[in-house]
């Protein structure tokens, strides 16, 4: 199975990982290179010591009675072995024949001269030895003696110095790496800051905020900001056009509709055949529904328009509620509904918010309450003030409230399944919801015992 791992990393984390990786690679290279250079320096030191030793040994080669004799310099050997407690081996051959030293010590392939000795590494008795080798001609009684001299030293001193240096070097590299990581962190933060600011700016945009985003962004983001702003302004104008169009349309429909309704009523009055009368009543009902939908579309358009530009004002909330209730009394009378309104809120209590939106919310709630109430029942409206909110509770006996689907309740053009006989568009509660959100209030509609529907509107003080 070919599973693709999709690791979603933030730009900051990507930057941190990349910079961290680079810092690690550079630190590792620095460590290796410095170590290499230092170990070369230590080897060079050992080579110098060996060169000096072999030169001092050369000085101690004598010709005694036509034979070669060597007087090994005590201090040189002492020095070679005491620095790092290193093992010392040596061998001197004369004309290819072993003269003195370690006869089983293997001779290297390369020999230098006293000015430029040859150096090699060799394994002997389980130790890696550094070997200096020279070939030198000595004359004795006009006879040529070819001497091959080697001195071998183990590498304890080199190892101990390298270990000490490595330990220090490791700490230095670690410090360098941590500093680099710190800078990587700072760099990532600095780089990401304008992007984060831009993202925050974009995040704040929504239905309630369609202002342009700031164009004070890094060059790379400028095209994006500009495109976004163009998009926002186009979106805004499209939105406005749509709303205007809907409002215009609704308005234009309502006027001819009232003509159709009044003409139909006139025709109904004059009509004598029961078939025609029934048809005319259906027409009048359809016209009523269309009229109502048009009004609500207008309401909706208005709410959307206000959403962008709420016009807050101070007004007496008690008076506002009372006025709306009074407007609905004639309609209630038609259905023989009794509106019982009780309020403990004083009329001098004011709120500061968009009154049109508030009125629309209350009106739609009341409209719904009346519309779905059983005939000859009671609609109870209770308006109180709590510590934080004004609380408007509207209770009515629901004609068909078998159950309320909370998910569907506030959706546009969605209506309950038992509401088909009742004139309505399904926009009412969604208009309430939007208006309530804009003014910072909250709405809750739920069914209670005894087929009662209770709508609670909370408006903050």
């Amino acid at each position, binding site marked *: 199975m070919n599973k693709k791992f999709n690791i979603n990393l933030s730009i900051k984390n990507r930057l941190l990982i990349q910079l961290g990786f680079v810092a690690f690679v550079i630190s590792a290279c620095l460590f290796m290179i410095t170590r290499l250079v230092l170990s070369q320096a230590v080897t060079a030191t050992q080579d110098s010591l060996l060169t000096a030793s072999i030169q001092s040994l050369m000085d101690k080669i004598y010709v005694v009675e036509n034979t070669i004799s*060597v*007087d*090994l310099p005590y201090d040189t*050997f*002492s020095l070679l*072995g005491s620095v790092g407690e290193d*093992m010392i081996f040596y061998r001197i051959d004369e004309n290819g024949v072993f003269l*003195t030293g*370690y006869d089983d010590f293997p001779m290297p392939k390369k020999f230098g001269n006293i000015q430029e000795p040859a150096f090699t590494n060799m394994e002997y008795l389980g130790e890696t030895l550094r070997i200096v080798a020279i070939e030198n001609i000595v004359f004795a009684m006009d006879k040529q003696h070819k001497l091959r001299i080697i001195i071998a030293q183990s590498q304890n001193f080199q190892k101990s110095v390298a270990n000490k240096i490595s330990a220090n070097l490791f700490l230095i590299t670690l410090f360098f790496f941590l500093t680099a990581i710190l800078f990587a962190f700072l760099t990532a933060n600095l780089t990401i800051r304008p992007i984060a600011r831009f993202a925050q700016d974009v995040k704040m945009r929504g239905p309630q905020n369609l202002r342009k985003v700031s164009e004070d962004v890094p060059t790379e983001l400028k095209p994006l900001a500009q495109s976004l702003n163009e998009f926002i302004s186009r979106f805004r104008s499209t939105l406005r056009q749509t709303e205007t169009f809907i409002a215009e349309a609704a308005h234009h429909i309502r006027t001819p509709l009232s003509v159709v309704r009044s003409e139909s009523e006139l025709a109904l009055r004059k009509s004598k055949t029961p078939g025609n009368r029934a048809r005319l009543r259906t027409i009048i009902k359809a016209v009523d529904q269309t009229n109502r939908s048009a009004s609500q579309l207008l309401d909706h358009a208005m709410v959307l328009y206000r959403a962008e530009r709420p016009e807050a004002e101070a007004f007496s909330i008690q008076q506002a509620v009372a006025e709306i209730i009074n407007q609905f009394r004639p309609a209630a009378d038609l259905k023989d509904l009794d509106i019982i309104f009780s309020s403990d809120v004083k009329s001098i209590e004011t709120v500061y918010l968009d009154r049109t939106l508030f009125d629309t919310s209350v009106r739609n709630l009341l409209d719904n309450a009346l519309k779905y109430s059983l005939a000859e029942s009671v609609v109870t409206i209770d308006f109180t003030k709590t510590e934080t909110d004004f609380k408007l509770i509207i209770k009515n006996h629901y004609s068909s409230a078998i159950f309320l689907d909370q998910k569907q309740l506030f959706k546009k053009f969605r209506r309950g399944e038992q509401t088909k006989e009742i004139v309505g568009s399904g926009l009412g509660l969604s208009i309430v919801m939007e208006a309530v959100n804009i003014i910072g209030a909250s709405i809750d509609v739920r069914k209670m015992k005894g087929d009662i529907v209770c709508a609670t509107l909370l408006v903050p003080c």
Partner: protein
Amino acid sequence: MRYLISSLLILLHINLANALTIEASRSYGVDKAKSDLKILSSTDIDVFHPVLSAFSALNPTISVNYSTASTADIYRAVRQSDSQFDLIMSSAMDLQMKLVNDGFAESISILENLDIPDWSQWQNKLYGFSLEPIGMVVSASHFNQGELPNTRRKLIAFLRANQETFQEKIITYDVTTSGAGFLLATQDDRQSNSFWRLAEVMGSLESHLSCCSGQMLDAVNNEEYLLAYNIIGSYAEKRSKRQKNLRVVYFQDYTHMLLRTAFVPKNSYNAATASNFLSFLRSKVGQNFIEEETGMLSLRSNLLNENPYYKPIRLDTGLLVYLDRLKRQRFLDEWSAALIQ
């Protein structure tokens, strides 16, 4: 009898299979038939006995077998790897250093005593455990306290002034047969030019050459000889308590300090036990025992700090040079020319 009944003393016992001459041998600990730790040493049993007894008492589960041989025999035995020992102790620093340098020693870790100076060990292989000042022993009855020469230069002048008295009355190591004698003479050669003048004087006085310090001390005590040069101090001082005619003189131009050293050979069966023993020797308890019971000096002896003329022979690869075939021959030729006239 001073020694335990179970102790075994074999004089001049020749192990034919190994060609190693064991001079003496003794076992310590509960199970003497089966020893856990086999030590081959050049230090006499009666000198080292207190230390071995103390170690045995502290470690009752370890049985110790201590054998002595000459430094040259020890060197040969290790080099040929034909005898199996767990610890090699010798006063011939140069031979010990050569064996270790040539890869015959095991690297061991021992419990380090912080008081012990760093120069007393080499490469975690060769460990010093006691110091021996090298001096001159004279027959007390023939010297007044005031006329004892305390430098080599004064000794040369003194011998020249009293040629008749000292004719054939000086004894010293035969460096051709004695490893310790060779080491001491070569260190003299390295240290000072007056050694060769002294050698010339000793040669002109027909000095006698001997293999062993014991013989030389007996001869001086008997007044057979009046002066013995290059004698290990601890032997002489221990003897001087019994042999009242012996007086030990340490020269103030320089007095060499010999370091007795030990290492664990590669073919050891009991390297861990050997390390334990070595740790004990270098511990505070061990060092105190060495100083108080054997007459040898502890490694942290105050003498070194108090008297600048006490010079420890450095434990490093410089010791190898006089073992070089050509250099050794050259030295022996010079020495013979000076001493055997």
